[in-house]
């Protein structure tokens, strides 16, 4: 996903592919996000193949931007078919005003403690994870300058809406951990090439604070009952590391909730251009197994978003109707409806 080519662009890279034949990580549905001139959400990568706790961490779900369930991560390593294929449905739509992607993780969850890796009998195939991301591009993106396409004149950057739906075959409560890895700050020429950066964390907002650089406001749609924590450089178990140039502490942000399934973990990822500090608020409108809907409001933005699962039928929330996969009704600077048709 991107709004333009070049250094001022916004960009999100999403992984909905098979596990692969080698060098695999338990990371389906992960993504990285770049805006404001730097990487904001990154993938910790891996630094060495030594049989250490950190190497194990870098391969496991804990080290990726995914969802863990009851402390268990993805478990494709037990499924030989995953080398060349994956389960679930992928969707991709790219339009001048938005990009949309959706994929599913249906290949089971299992504990993955270091150094043991368990066995296939421990894989719980009953938990399913579906992730959809809508990129709302900056107003004017994709247009010629004569049509208002100069993004520097846009009142707002683009932003991303991330929707996670977790379902289960049981009625028991589960502990969901939605993990985001804040990209560390590069320091060319310094003794330490990466530093973790500054972040302020609360259930309603997770905001990075780097003066003079681009930043990110991560806005959970349902902050009530949400346990949010930021960890870096922890061991036994390993949490909060980055494996580029070496092994360095970096922030892992975890949004945790205990709830019966189906449950939704939705969040707005709002990039802040250098010097900007204002970000919108998000208000929940509807959440169930078929539909998620919320409103994003702030200076220059007043958007209503609805995402429908297959079979939901036409759905109307707060005066906005979604007859396909998703819709975003934009009220500023003028009314505009962005529609993701059912695929």
């Amino acid at each position: 996903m991107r709004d333009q080519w070049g250094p001022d662009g916004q960009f999100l890279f999403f992984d909905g592919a098979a596990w692969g034949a080698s060098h695999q990580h338990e990371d389906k549905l992960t993504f990285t996000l770049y805006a404001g001139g730097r990487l904001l959400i990154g993938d910790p990568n891996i630094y060495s193949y030594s049989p250490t706790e950190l190497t194990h961490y870098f391969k496991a779900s804990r080290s990726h931007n995914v969802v863990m369930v009851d402390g268990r991560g993805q478990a494709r390593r037990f499924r030989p078919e995953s080398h060349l294929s994956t389960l679930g449905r992928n969707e991709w739509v790219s339009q001048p005003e938005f990009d949309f992607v959706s994929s599913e993780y249906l290949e089971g969850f299992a504990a993955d403690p270091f150094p043991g890796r368990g066995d296939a009998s421990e894989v719980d195939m009953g938990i399913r994870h579906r992730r959809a991301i809508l990129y709302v591009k900056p107003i004017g993106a994709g247009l010629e300058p004569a049509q208002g396409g100069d993004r520097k004149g846009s009142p707002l950057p683009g932003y991303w809406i991330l929707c996670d739906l977790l379902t289960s075959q049981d009625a028991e409560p589960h502990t969901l951990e939605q993990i985001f890895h804040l990209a560390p700050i590069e320091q060319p020429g310094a003794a330490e090439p990466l530093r973790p950066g500054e972040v302020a964390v609360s259930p309603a907002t997770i905001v990075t604070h780097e003066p003079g650089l681009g930043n990110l406001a991560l806005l959970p749609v349902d902050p009530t009952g949400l346990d949010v924590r930021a960890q870096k450089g922890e061991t036994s178990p390993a949490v909060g590391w980055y494996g580029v140039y070496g092994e360095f502490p970096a922030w892992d942000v975890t949004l945790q909730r205990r709830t019966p399934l189906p449950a939704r973990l939705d969040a707005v990822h709002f990039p802040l251009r250098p010097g900007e500090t204002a970000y919108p608020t998000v208000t929940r409108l509807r959440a169930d197994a078929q539909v998620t809907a919320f409103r994003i409001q702030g200076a220059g933005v007043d958007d209503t978003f609805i995402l429908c699962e297959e079979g939901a039928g036409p759905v109307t929330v707060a005066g906005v109707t979604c007859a396909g996969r998703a819709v975003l009704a934009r009220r500023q600077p003028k009314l505009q409806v962005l529609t993701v048709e059912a695929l």
Partner: protein
Amino acid sequence: MRTAQARGVALPEDFVRLVEKAHEMYLYAAQPDHILPMFNDCGTQPTDPAPYLRGAAQMFPRADFLWGASHGQPALGPVQGKGPRPITPRTRGPRPATM
């Protein structure tokens, strides 16, 4: 491909197309700073795909490969999605090839 070309060996068209498509990945996956996203075991250093795209541009005369190989020169970026649509042109320049 260069080796085969130098020796006058014709390669199957589907293989040639696959090589071209593989280099499209370097172009489309690059971040705005022209670095590839670091997923899985991506090595210990960030990877700049420009050298690969320079090689690709020798085999496939495409303006978008040249654009990626030169970190954004000329000013028109690759075409994304359907149709020949320039992305955020800052100055007028040649339209890149359609993919």
